[in-house]
């Protein structure tokens, strides 16, 4: 697909041959999945589950200065409409069933970002003798991307979203971006 003035975006079908004969059951066909993933990646809708201090940095990533809307990210209030869940904050024992319920309510394909030291491994509150918290979100739900920091800067959260994009498209979006950069450097 060529847009005038910009470098060509390589679709996966350019990399390998697409058979032109009729094949039944196209849904499971790998290039279609890759295309769908590219589309999903540019409209990631997170379920914002801000628990503690990291929630404020997550909101700061959403407002005017850092603005996650330019990546296509629109926060949704309900898990039924979201793709990715951002667990931001320390997880006490009372909240474990809530997190599990929310994760189960999200429709597949779903991803989880653990934001902040507390969601990664308990953070500054984990010490020998702590009774109140769970040492990390990955003890409850499977986590895809970990963003360290206490709290991480909003730019770090945006980089976390880019890493999820890489993971969702299995590296294709990374390759596209590298190709764009190389083309721009070649033009200069």
């Amino acid at each position: 697909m060529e847009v005038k003035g910009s470098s060509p975006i390589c679709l996966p079908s350019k990399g390998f041959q697409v058979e032109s004969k009729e094949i039944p059951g196209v849904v499971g066909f790998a290039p279609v999945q890759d295309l769908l993933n590219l589309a999903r990646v540019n409209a990631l809708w997170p379920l914002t589950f801000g628990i503690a201090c990291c929630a404020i940095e997550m909101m700061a990533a959403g407002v005017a200065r850092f603005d996650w809307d330019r990546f296509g990210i629109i926060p949704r209030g309900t898990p039924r409409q979201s793709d990715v869940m951002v667990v931001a904050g320390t997880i006490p024992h009372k909240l474990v069933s809530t997190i599990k319920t929310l994760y189960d309510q999200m429709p597949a394909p779903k991803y989880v970002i653990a934001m902040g030291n507390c969601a990664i491994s308990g953070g500054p509150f984990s010490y020998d003798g702590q009774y109140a918290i769970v040492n990390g979100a990955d003890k409850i739900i499977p986590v895809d991307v970990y963003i360290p920091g206490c709290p991480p800067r909003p730019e770090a959260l945006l980089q976390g979203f880019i890493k999820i994009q890489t993971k969702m498209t299995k590296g294709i979006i990374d390759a596209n971006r590298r190709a764009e950069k190389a083309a721009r450097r070649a033009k200069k």
Partner: protein
Amino acid sequence: MLNIKTIDDATINQRVYQLNLGPQHPSTHGVMHLLLTLDGEVVVKIEPIIGYSHRGHEKMAENRIYEQYLPNPARMDYLSGMIFNHGYCMAVEKLCGIEVPRRAEYIRVITSELNRIASHFIGTMDYAMGLGAITPFLWGWDDRENILDLLEMISGSRLTYSYGRFGGVRNDITKEFYDGTRKFIERLRSRFWDYENLINQNVIFIKRSKDVGVITKEDALLYGVTGPTLRGSGVKYDVRKHEPYSVYPEFKFEIPTRKEGDCLARYQVRMAELEQSLNIIEQALDHLPPGPVRAKVPRFVTPPEGDCYVTFESARGAAGFYIVSDGTRVPYRIKVRAPSFSNLFVLTKICPGHFLADIVAIFGSIDVTVPEIDR
């Protein structure tokens, strides 16, 4: 399939039902679970359920020496992290009898007031967003980013500061911070007109806030309400004037109050406090004394036996630290008086009788920070 014959009339004709507002909901106040008992659209009973943000700060204090506990107060009320941090340092200094140099006190006041402005931006603009106004939310957070830039210059952190130390602050302020703060004060004074034109006179905003959630003076006394929530009901109580600490007696500022006690009054009190904080910062910058910023204290501080209670004005109300020491390097008991704890409980008294939509307004106008309630 519902078997009608087995349900008796009382259940079918029951009008009252329970609804969960939380713990996860799009309104941005953290994990707060409100169990509402509703009769149609009118709230009959409200029960806040807390504990979803409990991290065990008070038990952690018994496992840390005083210096190691410094990062913790800022994470309790993270929106006034600097104020809590300085408050904890004040409590230990009172217990040990450490005197703080004047320049450090002035820097503490400047950073505390900057933090208070940042917190009030969140408090007022989140309230406006709860009523549906998205633009003030973006404006308020953008103005707040300027403050975070300034505080990051000297402390290195945007949200959870550990800038205060026993005996002063960690390092001196730079010329960049000084000039930046002066520019910031000028800019913010001109922005007040923008907010006035945008939201303060808006018909929908006023209709949804006026006469909603009235807290009377008697209720406030019985429930221990403090802060802008109290000043909106006509009681002129501010810890900075009533139990002056640090160098607040040297500054001229007023305490804005309103008489009505409804959501609009609390919003107006917070907006008026922004101006007062700017006055304090300006006076502090004008009279900043030279000198050291940190007193000489022993490496590991060992307070004598006894207890002490120190109170200070955070953005949400009168907070306090009650420290019991047994003469060793590890505190025996630290109790934190969180203003949001008392402010939240008054909801059970004032909410019944309002519509469901008003609950969001009332809850937003009280401006709680949930991890401070649960500690």
